[in-house]
């Protein structure tokens, strides 16, 4: 490697760097598995944070394009079993998302209807959130609890996602109180608290390896263009989250959210 400076000090620095590296380097450790696991968790966390932090200020369509996963740009079927697994099989052609507003509306409507039909006691209704997969649950005690769906890269079919409470590859843990769950459709996952904010999350892997879930968000933001400031999202208990995601209708709606659905 060359150095950019042509002065004495620059040559000195470059020579120091060169000299300290004049030694046998350690063998390259195997890192890919840990990197992939950590990267998937990071994407999940970012997706949870996106709704309130980004969608509140960025037009929906811009975010839709920004969240596109290259390789998943074919026309998605959002509803029904036929849509499941389609994201992994689409050709790798990096193009903007082809989601139409009708498909986004259908996705949002299905999720909202499922949540509204199975609200835990203490919640009185569901309002749209800052994007098609984020919602504000209206609380009887006033205010909202914001929730967003979780998506992630597929796992090997039949495998359980690693516990978010256990460090993977030496990475920092952002979860506590993890409780394993096996749901009526055979999906397996974890119910847990976030340690980065007062939130609860549910992460599951379907029998065919798709990652889905639901988590609360730090802020409850209204839909873009509706006006109003984001409010603090009140925490949801683990018991409430457990009851909500255990309803088969909610579970099916969550599992039908495609990998590249916008937040």
């Amino acid at each position, binding site marked *: 490697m060359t150095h950019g400076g042509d002065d004495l000090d620059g040559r000195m620095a470059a020579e*120091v*760097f060169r000299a300290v*590296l004049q030694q046998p*380097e350690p063998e*390259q450790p195997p890192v890919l598995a840990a990197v992939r696991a950590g*990267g998937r968790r990071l994407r999940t966390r970012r997706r949870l944070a996106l709704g309130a932090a980004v969608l509140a200020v960025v037009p929906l369509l811009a975010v839709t394009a920004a969240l596109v996963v*290259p390789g998943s740009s074919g026309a998605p079927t959002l509803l029904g079993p036929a849509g499941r697994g389609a994201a992994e099989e689409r050709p*790798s052609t990096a193009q903007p998302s082809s989601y139409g507003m009708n498909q986004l509306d259908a996705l949002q409507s299905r999720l909202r209807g499922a949540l509204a039909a199975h609200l835990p006691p203490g919640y009185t209704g569901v309002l749209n959130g800052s994007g098609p997969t984020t919602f504000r649950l209206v609380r009887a005690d006033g205010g909202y609890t914001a929730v967003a769906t979780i998506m992630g890269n597929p796992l090997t079919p039949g495998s359980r996602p690693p516990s978010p409470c256990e460090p993977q590859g*030496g990475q920092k843990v952002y979860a506590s109180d993890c409780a394993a769950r096996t749901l009526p459709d055979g999906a397996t996952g974890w119910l847990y608290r976030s340690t980065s904010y007062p939130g609860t999350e549910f992460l599951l892997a379907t029998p065919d390896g798709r990652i889905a879930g639901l988590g609360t968000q730090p802020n409850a933001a209204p839909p873009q263009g509706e006006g109003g400031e984001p409010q603090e999202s009140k925490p949801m208990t683990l018991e409430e989250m457990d009851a909500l995601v255990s309803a088969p209708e909610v579970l099916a709606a969550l599992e039908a959210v495609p990998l590249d659905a916008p937040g």
Partner: protein
Amino acid sequence: MSPERERLFEEFTAARYGALRRTAYLLCGDWHLAEDLVQSTLIKVYARWPRLRDPDTAGGYARTTLVRTFVDGRRRRSAGEVALAEPPETAAVGADPDRRLALLAALARVTPGYRAVLVLRYWEDQSVEECAAILDRSSGAVRSDAHRGLAQLRSILGDSVHEIAGA
């Protein structure tokens, strides 16, 4: 992520791991810490991989992420300096491998923020403007830090400076 993009990420990691680890070693002075830093960097790259279209973009993003992760980590744990042998007031630069250890000790005494600028400028061969973009600082601040970092290193190395620069 599609199998094709997974394969590209594997190729990227195989091709860039060594260079990233060397840069990380210059920043933190310890191979194990360097490997931790590179792993943290690759996790962030992987999370963003679906949106990185070509190796050049990915390489630049990885470099920026590596240096920022180092700098941010330094801010969060200012007491976590790399555990090197106590360096002498003025590093005596003799024969290898003593020379290498003396230079490593000298480098460890440079303020981490200045060290990051020096590594970017004189190892990664980045312009002042590129360094400023990577570190999210002004060009003036980068020039100032480079000047101070070089002054620190020169002072630590003492009379050895001319021998090193002429090597």
